[in-house]
């Protein structure tokens, strides 16, 4: 990346920041200026190689950078000032940490001479962000600045990706020092293991070859590993004929249209996926982490299976679930070996899997995503299905907020490619989707970018509509408006005797007028037979759209594994009567989140 003229030049710290961004291939930075980053903003002003996207709140910058990163596979970059700028970035940093998204966050800091004096807009940024980053640095010497930023990119994007923070005091931005270009020699203490142990992979192949009731359970690690990993996953599924399910984070790695797809698993996954997980004899977990939303009650989790776990992070192995064959390495590299060994040694007798597929077909016949269609009111599931039908053949990227709409989107919007689905999985951050859509649209200006939103979540970061208008980013905010915090209400119905404490929004803004106030376009639809035309209008408008889709207010999200229950104790939509809902969770399960 470096070229001769950049070798060890003298420049100011602020110049170094911009030079280092260029040398690390950065094209876009999301940020918000302030006192402690003014020298860097001055440098940004004087060049046009790195484009700065001005947000309206630092949380928006972080989520936009996350959307950018997840849709491109590159690091997302944000630039914020000291104090409140840095603290506002904490939510997206933790979000990126939990979902393993590479983010580089540059924060301004008060001058080194003032650090510790409770100066104006001072906070202990490295202290506050230590637990919500993969690593962070406070740079006190301008001569270490360039190398630190290069290292930050290296740490953020390699191994298990994650967010990093580089805190740069204002005097360091002004000081002159020597710029060093990116170097390939990383620090000796940080050496992620990418190549899997061949003996373990052999053991995995052996176990898989003997499986009668196998299931592949893949996750976000496949997507993080890059497009080649998704390709290899598809190849593995084709070769073995095994059924495959995926976590929320992993949707798209294996196509939802693929014949071995059994749908998403977990709390709101399909009946067939969860039953197959429960009854399988060999489970191949690829780049997922046995999160509580996936496993349900651990003591009853897939009790009779041998488990193979491929993960780049050794701490994910045996964390929640005991693994019989752990393989530590990059999913792509491990799959390469696994596919090669499978071809060389294992012969799948696909006929041997017939009884298993027959069983899966029986579970599938329960039609766990069914809902009662209504001709007068738009059912939220129907809205997603129509949205999918009308956009699936386009170059579409979907983001979401968090709640019922997110689960309906995961269930009813089907992804055939990786990097097309951006949602806050681990942290569950309401307000993620709108700024994330902005970030995706900046990276893919000609694509159709839709945020499937809820009426409550979308108001948390609504201000970024203004950024979208400024940068002519025609993001489509498709709001499933039921006037409730739907998932909160669903849990109050399940756990708290239907006492709907503060989950109803009595004063809802007029989203159409709001869109217009921002300079965008507003659409409202409340009739099922007008929905298609309204969606077509949304697609055709070349500016940011707020689509107020009025849906059935009391619809709930099923199927569901109630808290404290196992995979084979799902609550199915046709069984979810008021009484069943009220009694679904016992006293022990009530404590759980």
């Amino acid at each position, binding site marked *: 990346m470096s070229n001769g003229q950049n070798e060890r030049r003298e420049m100011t710290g602020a110049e170094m920041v911009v030079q280092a961004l260029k040398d690390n291939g950065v094209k876009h930075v999301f940020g918000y200026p302030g006192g402690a980053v003014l020298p860097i903003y001055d440098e940004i002003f004087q060049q046009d190689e790195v484009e700065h996207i001005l947000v309206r709140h630092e949380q928006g910058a972080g989520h936009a950078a996350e959307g950018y990163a997840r849709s491109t596979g590159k690091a997302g970059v944000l630039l914020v000032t000291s104090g409140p700028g840095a603290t506002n970035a904490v939510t997206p940093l933790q979000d990126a940490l939990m979902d393993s998204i590479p983010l580089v966050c540059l924060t301004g800091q008060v001058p080194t001479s003032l650090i510790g004096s409770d100066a104006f807009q001072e906070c202990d940024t*490295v*202290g506050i962000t*230590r*637990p919500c980053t*993969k*690593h962070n640095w*406070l740079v006190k010497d301008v001569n270490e600045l360039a190398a630190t930023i290069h290292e930050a990119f290296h*740490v953020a994007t390699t191994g298990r990706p994650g967010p990093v923070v580089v805190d740069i005091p204002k005097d360091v931005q002004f000081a002159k020092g020597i710029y060093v270009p990116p170097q390939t020699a990383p*620090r*000796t*203490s*940080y050496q992620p293991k990418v190549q899997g142990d061949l003996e373990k992979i052999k053991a995995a192949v052996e176990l898989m070859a003997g499986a009668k009731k196998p299931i592949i359970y893949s996750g976000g690690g496949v997507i993080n590993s890059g497009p080649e990993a998704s390709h290899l996953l598809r190849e593995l599924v084709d070769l073995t004929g095994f059924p495959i399910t995926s976590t929320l984070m992993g949707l798209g790695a294996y196509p939802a249209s693929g014949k071995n797809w059994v749908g998403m698993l977990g709390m709101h996954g399909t009946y067939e996926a969860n039953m197959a997980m429960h009854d399988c004899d060999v489970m191949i977990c690829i780049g997922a982490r046995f999160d*509580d939303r996936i*496993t*349900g*009650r*651990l*003591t009853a*989790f897939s*009790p*009779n299976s041998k488990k193979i776990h491929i993960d780049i*992070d*050794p*701490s994910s*192995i*045996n*964390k*929640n*679930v*005991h693994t019989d064959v752990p393989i530590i390495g990059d999913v792509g590299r491990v799959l390469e070996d696994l596919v090669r060994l499978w071809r060389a040694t294992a012969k799948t007798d696909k006929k041997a899997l017939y009884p298993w597929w027959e069983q899966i077909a029986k579970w599938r016949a329960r039609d766990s995503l069914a809902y009662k269609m209504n001709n007068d009111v738009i059912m939220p599931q129907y809205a997603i299905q129509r949205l999918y039908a009308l956009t699936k053949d386009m170059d579409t990227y979907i983001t979401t907020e968090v709640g019922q709409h997110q689960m309906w989107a995961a269930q009813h919007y089907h992804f055939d490619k990786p990097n097309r689905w951006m949602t806050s999985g681990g942290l569950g951050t309401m307000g993620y989707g709108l700024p994330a859509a902005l970030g995706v649209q900046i990276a893919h200006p000609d694509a159709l970018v839709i945020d499937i939103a809820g009426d409550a979540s979308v108001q948390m970061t609504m201000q970024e509509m203004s950024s979208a208008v400024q940068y002519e980013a025609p993001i489509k905010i498709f709001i499933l408006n039921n006037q409730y915090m739907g998932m909160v209400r669903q849990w109050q119905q399940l756990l708290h005797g239907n006492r709907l404490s503060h989950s109803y929004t009595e004063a809802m803004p007029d989203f159409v007028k709001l869109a217009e106030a921002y300079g965008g376009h507003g659409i409202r639809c409340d009739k099922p037979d007008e929905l298609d035309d309204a969606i077509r209008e949304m697609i055709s408008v070349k500016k940011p759209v707020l689509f107020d889709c009025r849906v059935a207010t009391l619809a709930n999200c099923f199927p569901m594994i109630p*808290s*404290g229950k196992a995979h084979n104790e799902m609550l199915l939509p046709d069984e979810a009567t008021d009484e069943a809902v009220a009694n679904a969770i016992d006293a022990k399960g009530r*404590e*759980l*989140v």
Partner: protein
Amino acid sequence: MNAQHLQPTGSAYFIAKETEKPETHTLSVLVDNEPGVLARVIGLFSGRGYNIESLTVSETEHEKHLSRITIVTRGTPHVMEQIKHQLERIVPVHRVVDLTVRSHELGQERPLERELALVKVAGTGDARVEALRLADAFRASVIDANTEHFIFEITGKGSKLDQFIAIMKPLGLVEICRTGVAAMNRGPQGM
């Protein structure tokens, strides 16, 4: 089959009967000596709900800027494995060795562990004579004294220090300072 591998902390989903017995282990952690590295290690323990019974840290290789952190912690074997892996994720951490596990592999009961304490005892008459006599029996040395007090320096296993301090209590114990455990495995190999 997973029941015996559950960890007690983390999400409320993992509340389940713990069937493994907690054990005390001594960990050696080799880290880059840079600002904040100790905070990263301690933050990991508090953030994930692990115990710290003793913590000792000092630079051990000046030229390489390496510090060695010795942590005595308590948890089930499963939690111990998690602690080790979580520590290894910290970017400036070079190596983590569970000295207790290592000593078992070497056929030994436990690693070598030593701690130093400074113990101040004030008094006159018989108590003062008794304190000095007992200090001699424990091979504690007097490093400061006047007619009314002694400061003893004592080195040994934690249990020996505990015992010495308990004995000094009725003899005019004023204050105690302990270093925490320094530890390594027996034999010619390094960590």
